[in-house]
């Protein structure tokens, strides 16, 4: 019995019952795309599956809350199903105190990821889930391992952009607390934030 819980652009997510662990686990399967030639299609799906599993495992090793991975074979990753509240809704619904605390936690976690050369690639609040008072990060499908300050700057730019469209009412306060948390865990924060500033000023067709 397969229970599909999400159809994304490149993967489907469904729950299966895993006998070894005697519990429901989440499967992320990258599906075939008819528009790509098979050679390219298989290359992309395999390498992205492998890379995503490695990123999640590494994030877990350095202490960021992420799903546990049980297996990553071919085009499928089997992992923990994180059941909690999405920050996309929670950040707007909660009170100022919790909002500040959540933002701080996001900042600290992203700081840790970047310190360990993990770039998430899609830092939106849809990809953050609160469970047992911890913010879990999911969907590393667009992530990469990188030492480059530029890539970390872009990661933050994506986050800020996402916040300004979904949480514009609280943007300043949230961002302030994220930066506070980020600086707490990342000694290179100032350099990366300078880079973020540059990235924001160089978009196409923006008045300088």
């Amino acid at each position, binding site marked *: 019995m397969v229970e599909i819980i999400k159809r994304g*652009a490149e993967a489907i997510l469904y729950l299966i019952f895993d006998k070894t662990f005697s519990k429901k686990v989440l499967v992320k399967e990258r599906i075939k795309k008819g*528009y790509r030639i098979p050679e390219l299609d298989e290359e992309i799906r395999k390498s992205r599956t492998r890379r995503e599993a490695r990123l999640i495992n590494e994030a877990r090793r350095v202490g960021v809350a992420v799903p546990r991975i049980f297996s990553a074979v071919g085009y499928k990753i089997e992992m923990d199903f994180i059941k909690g509240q999405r920050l996309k809704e929670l950040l707007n619904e909660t009170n100022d105190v919790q909002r500040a605390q959540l933002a701080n936690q996001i900042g600290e976690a992203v700081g840790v990821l970047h310190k360990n050369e993990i770039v998430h690639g899609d830092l939106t609040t849809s990809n953050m889930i609160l469970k047992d008072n911890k913010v879990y990060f999911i969907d590393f499908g667009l992530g990469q391992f990188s030492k480059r300050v530029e890539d970390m700057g872009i990661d933050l730019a994506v986050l800020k952009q996402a916040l300004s469209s979904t949480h514009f009412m609280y943007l300043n306060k949230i961002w302030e607390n994220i930066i506070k948390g980020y600086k707490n865990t990342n000694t290179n924060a100032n350099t990366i934030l300078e880079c973020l500033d540059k990235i924001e000023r160089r978009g196409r067709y923006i008045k300088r």
Partner: protein
Amino acid sequence: MKVPHLNSGNTFGVGIVRDNGEILANTRSIYTPEKGGIVPREAVAHHSEKAKEIVEKSLQEAKLKLADIDLISFAAGPGLLPCLRIGAVIARTLALRLDKPIMAVNHMIGHVEIGKLTAGCKDAVVLYVSGGNSLVLTFTGGRYREFGSTQDIAIGNALDMFAREAGLKHPGGPKIEQLAKKGSWISLPYVVKGCDLSFSGIVTDAIKKLKTEKLEDICFSLQETCFSMLTEVVERAVAHTDKEEVLLTGGVAANKRLQEMLSIMCKERGAKFHVVPAEYSGDNGAMIAWTGLLAYKSGQRQKIEDTEINRFWRTDQVDVTWLK
């Protein structure tokens, strides 16, 4: 009824459109550099030299006199500054001489609107691909917003750059498309960063491979790689916005393989695929005429002094008053 001029790059075009969307004339003259890319100074010389002839030709085609024209529109950006300027000067002169209203139109929105008119769609995820732009646009909150775009060069530019290095004559896109039919797969870098794309690294690698691989194989793989990247971002936009239509517009829309990929993707997702007819895919006057007319009919008015050109004009800076 209205005339417009378009010239933000190598094309000087004039179109005449009725307010029911009937296109009465669409004439143009394209400046083709003898070698290399567009030289703005030469493009301007070409445009000013051809302007009178093209305006007259369009009137003949529409069987109208200059005095029958009710509105003048022109492309005010984005584009090459000298080319935008010559178009603006000609449009303002005509508007003043005929004492008719004038509209400064965003070139990129022109491509979107002519696509919607001629391909017949309403609210699509738009892929606008040309020599100067590679954008995925969606209409939300009264504006055409950028869902994704290239971080460096445009797809058309990428194909042209490669074609030039491979010794193929301008325009390179159609020649690459022909050669690709006989090629087989070799691996090139595939660069999608979230919703954004990058083509410059792929071109560099493809040029490097000219020394070791067959030209047909590189052409094939270059198209497969770049078009798969574009299709992937469009698919992401469709999944994200839940829109049910996709529109392909701009000069590179003429490529059959790109059309095929998008059409397969749409079929797999249950969306409807539309492509702008070849006649209106490249830069043309009708698209500016039509977009100016839409803006005018929805109540927008401009004075001559408001029709400033803006070479960095983004789509999301334009209030789309003609759509709800």
